[in-house]
């Protein structure tokens, strides 16, 4: 079993910094997903673990060994590439068995091993075909089989599903999950698809512009985003983020004269520029006159089938809510909503970091002043 320890890992291309110092420990047997928008340095980080990129600064250890100076072959990692990177001139069997051939394993033993791995991913009828004669999903399986056959200490996945159609992607997700459950090998998976990340990960590493924004379980990241970036990036539709200021007595002032009364937050946020976040699914639509109800005007509606997304304007700020009612609703109509006190997130505008509201900061009910 193998843990991966990254300490102070930095990457610069010439003078351009792309990874600014990452400190993360990936536990042995854990499935970790690195999630971030394109260009955030997530693939670079993965490739540094693999040994395909030099590490400019800091150390990466796989198990107890610092691998900075080791060649990819000495690190015991197997990688599934984004475009699969199958050898086009080799058959499926040769593709899967290449690592064993390079390692000098005898022919008979190699063939048996290739056969058993191919069987486990359902490739045994295609062993003699060339990659060009396979479908996208089959190529994906060859790439996985090629990684599995080496019995690596670490699996690395670099956006492996980005070339598959949506349905196949869901199926492959389940397969990867099962694979990990049965082999229990430490896995690092890079993706920009948050659904993929949330469903696969034991833990998420969320990166933005070369910085780790948050490390945590999917539910933690969802329910307690550590920064504005994470709050905005995770969740679909995205979290409502409303910029404003707190006055001395805990009134949150926003937009054109909007005001929310959060007396409990006064002690931690008084006088600061903050952003208030609330997930669309936590915004509850209520009848006019309900205690704490906030008024808004509907901009437009997106019908999703099971529910609808209502985009509304409240005192000059956009608020999105998931509405399960089916009453007639149209542009320009007034609606009312309340915010659950446990669903509010506060972020400091200066550094984008979360402001933690302890239990005693929370008020039993929220009043719209």
């Amino acid at each position, binding site marked *: 079993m193998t843990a991966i320890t990254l300490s102070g890992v930095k990457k610069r291309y010439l003078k351009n910094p792309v990874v600014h110092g990452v400190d993360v420990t990936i536990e042995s047997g854990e499935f970790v997903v690195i999630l971030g928008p394109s260009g955030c340095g997530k693939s670079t980080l993965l490739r540094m673990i*693999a040994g395909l990129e030099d590490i400019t600064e800091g150390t990466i250890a796989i198990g107890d060994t610092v691998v900075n100076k080791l060649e990819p*072959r000495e690190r015991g990692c197997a*990688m599934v590439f*984004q*475009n699969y990177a199958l*050898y*086009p*001139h080799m058959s499926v069997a040769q593709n899967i068995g290449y690592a064993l051939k*390079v390692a000098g394993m005898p022919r008979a033993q190699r063939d048996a091993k290739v056969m058993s791995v191919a069987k486990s991913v359902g490739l045994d009828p295609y062993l003699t075909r060339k990659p*060009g004669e396979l479908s996208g999903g089959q190529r994906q399986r060859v790439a996985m089989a090629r990684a599995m056959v080496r019995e690596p200490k670490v699996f690395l996945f670099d956006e492996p599903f980005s070339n598959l159609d949506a349905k196949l992607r869901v199926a492959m997700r389940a397969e990867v999950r099962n694979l990990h459950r049965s082999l229990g090998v430490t896995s690092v998976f890079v993706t920009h698809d948050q659904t993929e990340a949330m469903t696969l990960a034991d833990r998420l590493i969320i990166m933005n512009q070369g910085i780790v924004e948050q490390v945590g379980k999917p539910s933690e990241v969802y329910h307690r985003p550590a920064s504005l970036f994470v709050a905005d990036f995770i969740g679909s539709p995205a979290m409502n983020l409303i910029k404003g200021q707190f006055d001395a007595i805990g009134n949150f002032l926003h937009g054109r004269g909007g005001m929310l009364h959060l007396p409990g937050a006064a002690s931690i946020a008084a006088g600061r520029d903050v952003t208030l976040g609330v997930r669309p699914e936590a915004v509850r639509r209520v009848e006019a006159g309900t205690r704490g109800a906030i008024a808004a005007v509907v901009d437009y509606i997106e019908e999703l089938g099971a529910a609808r997304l209502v985009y509304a304007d409240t005192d000059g700020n956009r608020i999105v809510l998931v509405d399960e009612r089916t009453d007639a609703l149209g542009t320009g109509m007034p609606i009312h909503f309340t915010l659950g006190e446990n669903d509010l997130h506060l972020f400091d505008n200066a550094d984008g970091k979360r402001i933690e509201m302890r239990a005693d900061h929370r008020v039993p009910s929220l009043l719209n002043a």
Partner: protein
Amino acid sequence: MERRAFYQNPVLPWLLLAPQLLLVLVFFYWPTSQALFWAFTLEQPWGGGNTWAGFNNFLYIFGDGRYWATVARSAFYAIAVSAISMCLALTLAMFVDRALKGTRMFQSVFVWPYAIAAPAAGVAFRFIFAPEAGLIGAVNEMWPGIWNPATNGFHALGMVIVCHAWLGIGYNFIFFLAALQMLPKSLSEAGAMDGARPYRRMLDIQLPLIAPTVFFLLIMNLISSFTDSFGLIDVMTEGGPINATEVMVYKLYVDGFKGLDYSGAAAQSIVLMLLVIALTFVQFRWVEKRVHYN
């Protein structure tokens, strides 16, 4: 659907083609037809009248042991030149493709030899290989008489082969580098993850995938070795010592222009031409079919 331009005026396309056609006719088909004619007749050394000879000119050269020795020497020359030139060019291209430091500079530097005229290179290499003073001649200081291309046929042939191979490196390098850079980088990385060292990756992954280019270059190099060696040999050895560097193209020059045997030389040039046509045919026939990747 393919879009083709066409001309309403039936004369205009011919006018546009005329300059090129004229060049090809005057400088290629006319001399070729002349050579073909001479090959089947007996020409008088000083011109004026000829006799139909049928295949006698060919029968004569094919019955000549010295001609066959030249053919064998040419074959060895062509294979050696192509092998040395391509191997070195491939090695250089591999290094440049791995994006080592100074890659951009080497990309252009390695091509320079191709721009040097063969006789000029020949003169330069004569100095380099001169037994009395050249760079290689220094070995004679340690072991006197060990190197002398002026008297030793193997030395002379080796010297010309090295020079010809050197001239071809730039051309081969460009093609190899272009082919290597067409390959997705991730293939090589996948090879590295699978545990293969750079040399192993070259043999197992890169080389099979650039096979069409290798094949194309092999044919081009063979053709060039058969036909372009004249300038070098004329400047460096003049076919000597004792015919040790006399290849097909040089023998036909000597027989024709020195020996004034126009008919024999013409027959030899037809044989050489057929050889080149055969190689070109092989090239067109197979090179397209051996593309692995899409």
